[in-house]
């Protein structure tokens, strides 16, 4: 049975500019998005910044009204039955905000428990359990303002589990966390998955989606461009190889020139301190290296490697090599 059903979702943002001649500027954040999530499934939504991931999650969380389409959570319409939907869901949006920093973690949880109809007797028992689950045992009496980003993020998880929702929306929950914090957080998500929660996870990190999600939808410019299991998505780039070239202070115009080369399927860059790593997807594999080096003539080049594609490479190809 499908717990979440999204059909032809469309959402436009309107901004008014000008004082005398007022103009309405429209941005179509989500154009035509459809997907279903099964009960107990961990579903990933991947896409570059501005692709429409957060907008989709906010519509599902009843925080935005869609312009068109049908969105149902456990068969309930998210506009007409918003209050009933809210009892079934929990959500986390990435970042540190959304908590009362001058209060302790326990006070924050007591407060949100009362807003989510949690009986005081139940919350008295559940709050210590949740603090233990998210690794904040013994720190609950401290004010949130002294917490690290990772601790705040884990407190968000405890907050969202207070009323024991069956469905969770996690919007880039590991963004900004250090590697250890992110790994601990992924462990928390795995625990939730084992409790048969239905989870929608949006993330920038492909390995996160690869290791956690059963199915992944790639969204770009407000549209779903692919939807499958991580292993099936990798097949999109099965015939390709990835050439990684380390450069120092490369001119953006040169990157554009390489992107236009006939044998280049997709290209993305990654900044690493003062270096830029070019990731070139090509069917020619190692044979493409001399031509690529030639197009970088006069520039300082470091390490060059050729490797098998990953889910991230599949994602780069699906979103047009812009990542």
């Amino acid at each position, binding site marked *: 049975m499908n717990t979440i059903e999204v059909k032809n979702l469309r959402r436009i943002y309107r901004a008014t500019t000008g004082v005398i001649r007022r103009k309405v500027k429209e941005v179509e954040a989500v154009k035509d998005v459809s997907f279903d999530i099964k009960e107990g499934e961990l579903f990933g939504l991947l896409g570059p910044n501005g692709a429409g991931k957060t907008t989709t999650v*906010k519509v599902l969380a009843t925080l935005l*009204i869609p312009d068109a389409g049908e969105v149902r959570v456990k068969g309930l319409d998210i506009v007409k039955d918003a209050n009933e939907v809210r009892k079934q869901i929990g959500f986390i949006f990435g970042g540190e905000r*959304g908590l009362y*920093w001058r*209060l302790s973690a326990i006070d924050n949880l007591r407060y949100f428990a*009362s*807003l*989510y109809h949690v009986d005081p007797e139940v919350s008295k028992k559940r709050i210590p359990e949740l603090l233990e689950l998210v690794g904040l045992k013994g720190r609950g009496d401290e004010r949130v303002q002294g917490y690290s980003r990772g601790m705040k993020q884990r407190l968000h998880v405890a907050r969202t589990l207070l009323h024991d929702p069956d469905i969770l929306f996690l919007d880039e929950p590991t963004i900004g966390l250090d590697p250890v914090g992110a790994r601990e957080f992924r462990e928390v998500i795995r625990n939730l998955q084992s409790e048969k929660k239905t989870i929608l996870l949006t993330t920038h990190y492909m390995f996160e989606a690869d290791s956690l999600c059963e199915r992944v939808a790639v969204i770009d410019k407000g549209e779903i461009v692919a939807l499958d299991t991580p292993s099936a998505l990798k097949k999109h780039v099965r015939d390709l190889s990835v050439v990684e070239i380390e450069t120092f202070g490369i001119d953006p115009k040169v990157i554009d020139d390489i992107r236009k080369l006939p044998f280049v399927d997709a290209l993305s860059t990654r900044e690493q301190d003062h270096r830029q790593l070019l990731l070139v997807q090509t069917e020619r594999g190692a044979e493409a290296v001399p031509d690529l080096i030639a197009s970088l003539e006069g520039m300082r080049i470091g390490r060059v490697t050729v490797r098998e594609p990953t889910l991230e490479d599949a994602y780069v190809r699906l979103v047009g090599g812009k990542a």
Partner: protein
Amino acid sequence: MKFKNLIVYWRTILRVAEITLRHQWNDSFILFAILVQPMLIAILALFMLRGSGENYAMFVVVGSGLTGLWSSLLFISGNSINGERWQGTLESLVAAPIPFEVIIFGKNLANVVQSLLSMSTSYLLAALLFGYTLQMSAPFLFTASVFLSIFAFISFGLIIAPLFIMYRGIQQWQNAMEFPVYILAGFLFPIALLPNWTTPVSYILPPYWAARALHETSTGEGDLQKILLAWGMMLIFSIVDLFISSKLFRKMLYKARVDATLETV
């Protein structure tokens, strides 16, 4: 509305009020609005009216407390929704199954109750600094007036908060609305001293009826009929305000979900 819901709402209101009080207690602006400013007003008024008698001192004590109540309502309750938005907590509150106005009711309760402190500090000032022996003429009627005033102020605050969100033009006049209400509601002197044309304006202000009930029961200058009229007016205004605010909240929340303004400032 089911009885069980009422219990849940009331429990939520008390918890929200408790947490709001604890959260706000470290905010220096709030301490200024509810303690320092009314104290300064009380000192000023008591100096100006030295020799006017003990009754007038009681009038000033209650009146300066009312200034604290009004400032708290206007600035703290009026900005309560924006405050949540700045902290990034508004989305979690809106997405909670409890009606949003119940949460704001709890926050307003905290603000109104804590601003009653200003009345107590003014009382202490008058007694300790100016040597007045202040006696409440009708303590039971005064207590009942305090409870009705709390309800009237909270209900009035429930209209102000969504209006400030939906019509930012009104919020720009927030500062300009503070002192005129001190005057028109008769906090520190009777409105009989004002020109006649201002009287109808005073009558449509719930703070005026609260001030009247509190002054008349504390100084003993009003008869029971006048007190009952003030109570009745407060009750009517409170019911009307609650009705209007429920419509305003529904409209505001729907508009915020359409305009995507729950997160943005």
